[in-house]
């Protein structure tokens, strides 16, 4: 079976967060009858439980749709969903590589936003044709004509004939479908050439093994072929090829140039599959691999430990499985005196960290203890060496350090004018360096600041949202490293240093942070039989102290024949509570305490 390339359209939908990307995807799928109404569930593409709960798209998803156009021909649409959050730029980039065009969704009320621009630039980088769509025209504040002008002015895209739609109500979706046929180019590529296919995603299935999501650039692939992964060299025999129904895999005879689909090849070792790698035919290989993706480096690090130390191997397996379709996740083993064996993990940002943490807990049923997130510091040593520090415990002795550098990001914050003052105050508090501010319109300003990354990984998003009542949007990219006065803050509980609680902090903030950390821990650590001092120290010097007073009285006053069972349950509960504790010296520390540094600023 050969498919006429001119009848294929591979495209994605890009948008700023909340502009209606997933809703439009739903409408497209629905109106082409890919799903029966019984299968149709809001936001079909967001099939991870977590995605639906948060209403965001994390992983890219793909679906194949058959559309009969007004010219009477049937077209195959391959729709690839992309995430919208800044942390997942890497995912966006991967999805775009599998497409020939992109639908740009812009909210008719909010207009062009930070992520609108970022995503358009990404799409243009991948040589995609971008087709604008104005969404939410049913909203009272919708100003579609102004938004169209904005798209033309700010982005430089022709938008006059952009469909004015409401993805929510389904208004004018037919125009979108027709324009996909006319404006998105058909794929090119020689079906008879040697196979070259780009892996844009992969997932692990306990029955089928690794399922590779790929875009066939040249040649074709069918069951029985022996394929080779060009980067890893792994070879295996293809057992199944197919395309994506909504939420399910539909096998077919062959995938050929221009098609988007999946293949299974009894790949044993999940690490043999790398997203961005090229698949070719082992017997008739292509001459060189397709250009992969720009490797994205993690910026935020933290330690992840199984709450039950016996689950170390389970945590490792889970991380390996998550990594096959999330190459931006990095991890390496580390040990902590307080927490035992675990992993130092690298993430694109704090949201990415949270998502991975939640996926580990939900999909793999792991109970985790996470340490305070940090960034990569550059330590210039007196002997001329430069080391990159991701774990505060590995900081060399102060006498060996010449100076340290910390990462700086260029941040862009879009905010309505009434909150400009509040946002600038926030940036100043976070050691921000003012760069510029411009009014995009009378009521909207774009503020640019250079901010130390370690000031924004804790709770900057939350602070931003609360101080702007949710009106600010935020984007950042790594700018480089700057020299900074940094110190390691250690926490001592009952006079023992707890390595998992150490963190690197700007020197002038150290006293304040140390004090708040001690206060927080005092609330988190339950009373013991003895008094427990909690101290913050820099080097050997104690800078703050709190005390958890000894428990004086813990008694069940009454226990007679009728309530023995109930009283025993109370004792059991008390003992059960201890299981969620970590023993450090002779002190039991609740697991939440290790994350408590995160919440230091929640009184903002």
């Amino acid at each position, binding site marked *: 079976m050969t498919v006429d390339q001119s009848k294929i359209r591979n495209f994605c939908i890009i948008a700023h967060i909340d502009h209606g990307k997933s809703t439009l995807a739903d409408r497209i799928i629905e109106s082409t009858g890919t799903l029966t109404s019984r299968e149709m569930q809001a936001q079909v593409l967001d099939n991870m439980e977590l995605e639906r709960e948060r209403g965001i798209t994390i992983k890219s998803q793909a679906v194949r749709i058959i559309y009969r156009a007004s010219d009477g021909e049937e077209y195959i649409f391959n729709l690839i969903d992309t995430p919208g959050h800044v942390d997942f730029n890497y995912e966006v980039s991967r999805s775009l590589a599998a497409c020939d065009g992109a639908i740009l969704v812009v909210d008719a009320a909010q207009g062009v936003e930070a992520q609108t621009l970022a995503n358009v630039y990404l799409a243009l980088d991948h040589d995609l044709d971008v087709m604008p769509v104005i969404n939410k025209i049913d909203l009272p504040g919708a100003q579609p004509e102004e938004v169209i002008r904005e798209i033309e002015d700010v982005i430089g895209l022709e938008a006059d004939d952009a469909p004015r739609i409401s993805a929510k109500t389904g208004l004018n979706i037919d125009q979108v479908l027709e324009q996909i046929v006319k404006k998105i180019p058909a794929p090119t590529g020689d079906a008879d050439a040697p196979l070259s296919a780009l892996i844009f995603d992969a997932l692990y299935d306990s029955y089928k093994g690794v399922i590779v999501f790929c875009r066939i650039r040249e040649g074709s692939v069918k069951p029985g072929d022996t394929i080779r992964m060009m980067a890893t060299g792994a070879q295996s025999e293809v057992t199944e090829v197919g395309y994506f129904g909504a939420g399910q895999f539909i096998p077919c005879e062959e995938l050929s140039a221009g098609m988007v689909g999946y293949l299974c090849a009894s790949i044993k070792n999940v690490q043999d599959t790398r997203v961005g790698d090229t698949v070719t035919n082992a017997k008739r290989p292509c001459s060189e691999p397709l250009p992969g993706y720009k490797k994205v480096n993690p910026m935020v690090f933290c330690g992840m430990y199984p709450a039950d130390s016996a689950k170390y191997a389970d945590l490792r397996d889970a991380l390996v499985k998550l990594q096959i379709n999330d190459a931006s996740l990095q991890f390496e083993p580390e040990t902590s005196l307080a927490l035992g064996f675990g992993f130092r993990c690298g993430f694109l940002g704090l949201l990415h960290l949270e998502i991975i943490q939640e996926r580990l807990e939900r999909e793999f049923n792991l109970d985790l203890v996470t340490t305070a997130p940090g960034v990569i510091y550059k330590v210039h040593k007196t002997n001329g060496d430069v080391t990159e520090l991701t774990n505060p415990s590995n900081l060399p002795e102060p006498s060996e350090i010449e100076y340290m550098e910390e990462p700086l990001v260029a941040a862009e914050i879009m905010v309505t004018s009434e909150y400009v003052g509040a946002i600038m105050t926030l940036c100043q508090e976070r050691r921000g360096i003012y760069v510029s501010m411009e009014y995009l319109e009378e009521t909207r300003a774009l503020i640019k600041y250079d901010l130390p990354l370690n000031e924004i990984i804790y709770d900057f998003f939350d602070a931003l949202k609360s101080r702007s009542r949710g009106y600010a949007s935020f984007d950042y990219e790594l700018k480089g490293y700057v020299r900074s006065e940094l110190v390691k803050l250690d926490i001592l509980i009952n006079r023992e240093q707890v390595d998992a609680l150490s963190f690197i902090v700007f020197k002038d903030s150290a006293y304040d942070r140390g004090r708040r950390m001690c206060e927080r821990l005092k609330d988190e650590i339950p009373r013991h039989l003895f008094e427990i001092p909690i101290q913050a120290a820099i080097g050997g010097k104690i800078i703050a102290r709190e005390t958890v007073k000894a428990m004086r009285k813990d008694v069940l006053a009454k226990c007679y*024949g009728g309530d023995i069972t109930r009283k025993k349950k109370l004792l059991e509960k008390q003992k059960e509570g201890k299981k969620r504790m970590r023993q450090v010296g002779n002190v039991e520390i609740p697991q939440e305490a290790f994350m408590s540094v995160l919440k230091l600023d929640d009184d903002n």
Partner: protein
Amino acid sequence: MKQMELYIHIPFCMRKCRYCDFLSSVEDEATQNLYVRALLSEIAFYGGLYRNRTVTTVYIGGGTPSWLKESAIVSILNEVRRAFVILPDAEVTIECNPGTLTGYKFSVYRRVGINRISIGLQSADDDELKRLGRVHTYAQFLKTYELARQNGFSNINIDLMSGLPGQSLSDYKATLQKVIRLKPEHISAYSLMIEEGTPYYEQYKFDLVRQEAGLKPQFLPSEDEVYQMTQLTSQMLAAAGYGQYEISNFAVRGYECRHNIGYWRRENYLGVGLGASSLIDNIRYSNLRDLHEYIEQTKQIRSGLWENEHKEADGTVRIEELPAVSIHASAERIGRNAQMEEFMFLGLRMTDGISRTAFEQCFGKPIEAVYQDVLLRLVKEGLLVKHAGRIFLTERGRDVSNYAMAQFLLP
């Protein structure tokens, strides 16, 4: 002949106190009569079932048993004597609340063989009594106490509470002094526990949260004050000649409550009446808790089998059949580990703790074979003492007894 204790529950009160989470309610006389009739059927039924057991103690508790008219108590105890063999020197207690008794009632109690009176005073301060939602004043209590003495009762308990909302250390001291002057044979001094589902819980839940967070509560005494109150209790009662024989119980030597000691030593006990619990040959039963359902079901009590899912050590689940009767709401076999746990945490409530020989007799192995590590740790922490064949908590151990007792729960 096998022995057992007998508990009889009377679930009625003139008014529900604000802190109380016991099974009791305010009901009219007709309902009370129906209940007493049901109770008589239950007792008669067990008379058939446990003919071969001797009853060592009888305890009529509530609720407010003294609120029932005296004829009800007479018929209950007559039925008990018809149904069971009662030891001639059995301890027979009834719980009384001031304001529900007359001299005549006390004289009837004496005639039917009641030999111990337990009076719920709680506080000698009328403001505190009001805040607790008690129906009586201190003066009314004094009257009741005198009536009991006049009618020849020589074994009287007075219930007290510390840690009440708005109570200061000196307020509590005043109550203790007044009670000591009366020279009761027995004093139960509890610190108030605020239980979910009571009006007090609603009233003071914010204070409870504050306490939990280590903040000073607004209405309730702080942890330190409550601690001082319990310290004061022990000191003053010791000085007045009372021995502390359990966490909250004090007595003139020889007047310790035998019925309650039975609970802590895991003796067999049969509980009759609404919601009452029993422990018979290591099966724990509890009766139906709905008043009308209980009354209805007692019209035709039958023996039968209770089916329980029983999980084996290897994880397999099998159905275990336990002997039970039709008014039971639950029946549960106490496994060997659970028996040991209960032996320890109940036994350690008493100041003389547990006996090593008793443990060995019960479980066929020395206590160290099970609790070696725990015992060593608690001794090291200064919470436990081993002495002359007994193992008991230190004073500090009693202050933090929840911690100490939780250590004896087996994995």
